[in-house]
């Protein structure tokens, strides 16, 4: 079943230096339960595309549907949770208070808010940290809290814009593993922007390689790797072969010295 469908999507920003083609002729369909990574150099439109799915930007050409409706309507239907690069937790709210924030805005009952906060904090391994303030947690834990916040209202789609980009590699590896486990448990559809080839190959069932000027898709790779992925899978020939193909795709799109 197709969840996200882009047909000839183009997006042009009007700037003082003339129009900038952030996206051009983007065609892509993402099925339910897929883990899709968008990879490419900066300026390739990967974040813009994710933002367009979230109705934070609006395509100037083509059609983009989420769950069969427009991106704006999908937002109203609470179709997706969005995780930004920075955790963006409110320093004046506890971890539980932060996770509760979207629930307050959406008007869930007090009892349901408490129950959901408890449940999603457990889902990201943050039980017992609800009463802590963000500054009392490490960067990795803060990002886990922000994932919990995106999961709190049961959206089927999770959009993540370089969520682990600011974290060190050791923490990043752990969070990648946990994210896969979370994905397996919840069956969400995940759109994931990254500029790390190993991260994209390790996580995804589908890798979308993009290139800049104008931002476009140069390759879509369906990963043959099994869904069950221990960290060691990164040393197998299959993994290395996919990573190689991604690297070739990026090189073909030029401007990316690997």
């Amino acid at each position: 079943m197709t969840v996200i469908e882009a047909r000839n999507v183009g997006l042009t920003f009007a700037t003082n230096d003339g129009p900038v083609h952030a996206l051009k002729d983007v065609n892509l369909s993402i099925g339910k339960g897929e883990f899709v990574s968008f990879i490419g150099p900066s300026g390739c439109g990967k974040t813009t595309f994710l933002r367009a799915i979230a109705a934070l930007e609006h395509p100037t050409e083509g059609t983009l549907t989420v769950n069969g409706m427009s991106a704006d309507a999908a937002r109203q239907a609470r179709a997706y949770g969005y995780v930004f690069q920075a955790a963006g937790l409110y320093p004046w709210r506890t971890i539980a208070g932060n996770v509760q924030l979207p629930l307050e805005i959406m008007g869930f009952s007090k009892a349901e808010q408490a129950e959901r906060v408890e449940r999603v904090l457990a889902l990201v391994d943050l039980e017992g940290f609800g009463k802590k303030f963000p500054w009392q947690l490490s960067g990795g834990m803060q990002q886990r809290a922000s994932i919990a916040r995106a999961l709190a209202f049961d959206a089927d789609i999770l959009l993540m814009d370089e969520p682990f980009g600011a974290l060190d590699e050791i923490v990043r590896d752990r969070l990648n593993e946990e994210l896969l486990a979370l994905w397996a448990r919840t069956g969400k559809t995940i759109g994931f922007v990254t500029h790390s080839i190993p991260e994209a190959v390790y996580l995804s069932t589908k890798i979308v390689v993009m290139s800049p000027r104008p931002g476009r898709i140069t390759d879509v790779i369906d990963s043959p790797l099994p869904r069950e992925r221990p960290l060691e899978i990164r040393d197998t020939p299959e993994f290395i072969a996919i990573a190689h193909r991604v690297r070739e795709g990026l090189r073909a799109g030029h401007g990316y010295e690997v």
Partner: protein
Amino acid sequence: MRFKRAVLPILTVLAAILALWYAGAVWMNAQWSRDQAARAGVEIGFTEILRDTMSQERPVLPAPHQVAAEFGKTVFGTKVTSKRSLVWHGWVTLSATAVGFALGSAAGILLAIGIVHSRAMDLSVMPWAIASQTIPILAIAPMVIVVLSSMGVTGLLPKAIISAWLSFFPVAVGMVKGLRAPDAMQLDQLRTWGASRAQTFWKLRLPASMPYLFASLKVSVAASLVGAIVGELPAGATAGLGARLLSGSYYGQTVMIWAALFAAAVLAAALVGLIAAIERVVLRRMGMAR
């Protein structure tokens, strides 16, 4: 040890100020002593000049102990209901300051909310707010007093309005900055949850602006006090610290002026200290003080 480290620098600075002040008093008051001596036809030596400059009735610059004595007499040695009591005058000024501060802060916060939420207000209000502050308050104060008294409004309210005139501006500027403190990512985040403007305001903008609010409240409370004092000058000057300053200058009572100045300084320090204490409590409750 900690006590010593905190107190020693303060005492050193205080001692330096007092020494300079005494030296200044001698230097500035000596002329009068010499003139008096010349008029009486007596020779006057350095020790006599020194003694005389410390105890003149209307010195150019009163010595610190003279000011301290006047301050002590009018604050502690006089019944607080007496018109000679600095506490009474201080209370008159403080009440106008408090009302003016409340009016000014409320106006500043409301203006900031309008400016942040309406592009038209953003473009139109700020220039007027800035213009209002470039007009000398001494020029505006008598007009406010006269216009209001012709409408039958006298007493505390005209002074409070002048006080509010000075105090709304720092709050408005600080709150505009504070309400705009949330970055694009945080605002996008709220958009993804379909938050309304009211929700964005109450859940994000307002709490994020608190540190800015308190910083500007400290500036504005001091400005409120200045406004209240200035507001007392043109109104016949019968009550308040402004009245003490004015009648002191009418009668050349420099000691009285300085005592009133100190009373104003003590009041301002206490008000700023009070805001700082409230700030500490509020920010700690919000988990924003580390």
